[in-house]
């Protein structure tokens, strides 16, 4: 029999530290497989976040940096400007991208930096104990909104990828998910597209990935993926919000 699926060599042969059913390691695999398939292993540089994925550099067998909380796209900007032939991506969570790092992410996109932001959205601050994030859904209980998020008190759910899509420097903005095989395949295709947009010099690219956090959602892994399917994708619709490469090829 022929081996048709195995771990990509861009991921080190070490176990992940994530909780059972976490979406982070699925996203790690997709990014690593795309880097491998594009032949960019020697030219890829990743910037992990603060949060559960802070140790991502233990898993990717490529050059990795580290950024203070929220500053992933700012650090990626510096690296890409000095080494423009490299594939540079930040890997960040929702609190990182859309709360403490709002300014950095927003302005990196607006400047049209040719970097990619892999934006993991699980609706909570995972590592610190499941506190409410900007992306927490209305009514969703967290440790800091135990009665559920109330927009009058906590503010509204922030859909950051839609906002980034409106900026002229953003070339590609998409929301995907990793809760079932079909969605995982589409997420991988979106990461590939984002990296190609970056290397074509079209501008900023962001791939939001809806990701399960069973531990902080107080669910089993299977309940968590069903919650994404039934609830989260209603609030955060999956889809492409901007694709300048499509417009460019259409004009050609």
């Amino acid at each position, binding site marked *: *029999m*022929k*081996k*048709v*699926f*195995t*771990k990509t060599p861009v*991921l080190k042969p070490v*176990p*992940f530290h*994530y*909780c*059972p*059913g*976490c*979406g*982070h*390691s*699925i996203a790690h*695999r997709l990014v690593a497989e795309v880097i491998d398939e594009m032949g960019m292993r020697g030219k890829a540089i990743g910037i992990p976040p603060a949060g559960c994925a802070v140790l991502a550099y233990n898993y990717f067998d490529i050059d990795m940096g580290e950024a203070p909380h929220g500053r992933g796209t700012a650090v990626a900007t510096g690296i890409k400007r000095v080494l423009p032939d490299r594939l540079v991506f930040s890997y960040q969570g929702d609190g990182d991208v859309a709360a403490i790092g709002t300014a950095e992410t927003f302005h990196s996109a607006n400047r049209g930096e040719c970097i990619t932001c892999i934006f993991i959205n699980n609706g909570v601050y995972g590592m610190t104990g499941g506190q409410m994030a900007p992306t927490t859904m209305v009514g969703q209980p967290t440790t800091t909104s135990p009665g559920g998020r109330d927009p009058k008190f906590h503010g509204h759910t922030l859909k950051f990828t839609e906002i980034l899509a409106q900026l002229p420097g953003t070339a590609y903005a998409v929301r995907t998910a990793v809760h*079932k*095989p079909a969605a*995982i*395949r589409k997420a991988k295709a979106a990461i590939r597209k984002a990296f190609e947009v970056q290397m074509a010099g079209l501008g900023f690219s962001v791939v939001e990935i809806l990701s399960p956090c*069973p531990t902080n959602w107080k669910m*089993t*892994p*299977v309940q968590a*993926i069903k919650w994404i399917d039934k609830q989260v994708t209603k609030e955060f619709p999956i889809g492409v919000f901007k694709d300048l490469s499509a417009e460019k090829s259409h004009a050609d």
Partner: protein
Amino acid sequence: MKGKIVIDSALCKGCGLCIEACPNKLLELGEELNEKGYHFAVFLEERDGKGCVGCTLCAITCPEVAIEVYREEG
């Protein structure tokens, strides 16, 4: 059997997502515990007359990348 899978039981955390993904219900959590203390997933060669087709859906879903998939050629 057109396909088969090999599960690295030491990596498995028993999340059960592969069990949800398998179209022929060929995965289940076993009785044994691994070193981490999880009931790891085990592969059944056949259930209700159906075997593995090597579709890779379990491996695509596995957060631990603990599953290798083999398929008959041709």
